[in-house]
């Protein structure tokens, strides 16, 4: 079984190689990414309680690569904050390459 998370544990966030530009822009516009994501989770819980979203949303949601532009009201602000030192709780991704180099 999957290990259960406890308060204080890390969660990993990694963007997909083909992540929609609007999503990337949204991420880059946050001054505190983790708290913004927490806000989205809070709204979901308020509306629907705690549930496994994978059982309620389609895998392909038709969020096209230019969706934000198409609706005319995407993002107004320039992303002005580099996420490099943010409080992102980004569990380091160790890949095969990393391991290989030490063996």
């Amino acid at each position, binding site marked *: 079984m999957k290990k259960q998370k406890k308060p204080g544990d890390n969660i990993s966030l990694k963007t997909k190689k083909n992540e929609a530009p609007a999503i990337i822009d949204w991420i880059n516009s946050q001054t505190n990414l983790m708290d913004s994501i927490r806000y989205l989770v809070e709204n979901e819980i308020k509306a629907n309680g705690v549930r496994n979203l994978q059982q309620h949303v389609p895998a392909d949601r038709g969020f096209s690569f230019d969706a934000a532009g198409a609706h005319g009201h995407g993002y107004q602000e320039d992303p002005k904050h580099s996420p490099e*030192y943010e409080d992102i709780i980004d569990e380091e991704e160790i890949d095969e390459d990393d391991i290989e180099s030490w063996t």
Partner: protein
Amino acid sequence: MQYQFLVGNDNGNSEHDIFIDGRLFQQPNVNCAVDQLPWSEEQAPETIVRNLQENLIVTIDSPAARAGMYYVGKFALESGELIENIQVGVDYKYEIDLPIVNTLAQIAAVAVQKGFAEEKKLPASIDVTVDMATALPITQHSDESAAKFEKRFMNGPHHVTVHVGKQRVSVKVEFEFVKVIPEATPVTFSLQKDQDGNWRKGDIFDQFIEANNLPNNFNGSFFKNKRILHTDIGDGSTEYPITEGNKFLRQFVHGTNHGAGYAIEEALSEFNRLIHLPDSPRQFFSDVIKNPNHKYHARAMSTLKRPLEGQARQIINNIRKQLTKARNEIDLICVYGGGSILMQPILAPMLKELCNEREIQLLYIPAKYAVTMNANGLDAFVRGKIYGAIKDRAKQPV
């Protein structure tokens, strides 16, 4: 009684820095074989257990080292007995007994302290299983030598009797898995994370942040993809590996026999002449250097200046060689190790110039962190995912 310890073990030429179960112990890396206990009277175990590291006497029965009784670390140094140490440029760390004996002794001592704290009395026996990361100098590290060193630990069990006054505790130490990596390479992990696994912060980076105009929420995540040329200056060897994020770049592996120890030996006779002593030991000279209030301090430093410059120039040359090999594609040069403290006034300005010329940042680790960077890195490594993956792989049947 059964314990499971994680160990990050830096067996240096002068000092033994070892993290056991999350705590750092620092000892002179020396021991001596003896025939009998120095105690003639019974002593209260409480006082000895509390200061066990200062009174460390063990009897070793292990397939990896000569059986017998040993004084270890500070206690050996102060005993007046004939001391074993690692001879710079002569001994191969993976072949001699000293690293094995001293590692076993330190681990067994911590087990005894932990057992005593839990039971409020000395336990009769303790079993310890250990996961350990340790290192060899780059000049000595190869797949074969690393495997040989690992096996000497893993071919256990090792029986260690810890002498607490006249009482004995029998500690059986078994290494579940040991990984030996080149010295200095694990420091990439201790730059990134602290002991709790969070991005590292704190005054270790103060000068670096100021010199490079970095934002004040700077932390160790800065290093996660950086190409770092390490310069780990020891007593007897200096290591110049290159890491990239969590990767160790094998094609750039390089180490040389330079260090503060050579400069000290070179300066010693001139120092003795100046203070009108026919002969004074290296340890005395070292103490005078470390103590700015000593009446001979200024004289000691002046005799050291030229030999240190010589060593610093050699080190700069080797850094240049590495930069050329790497086509200057290095984000920062990171300098640490015991020898870096003594050389700082000479080496830092030379390096700053070189770094400006090649558009590279310079992180000269402050003195209070410089010595334990390797031990910290090995501790981080043994807790990390890479160690876990390597261990899992090794356990799989081929």
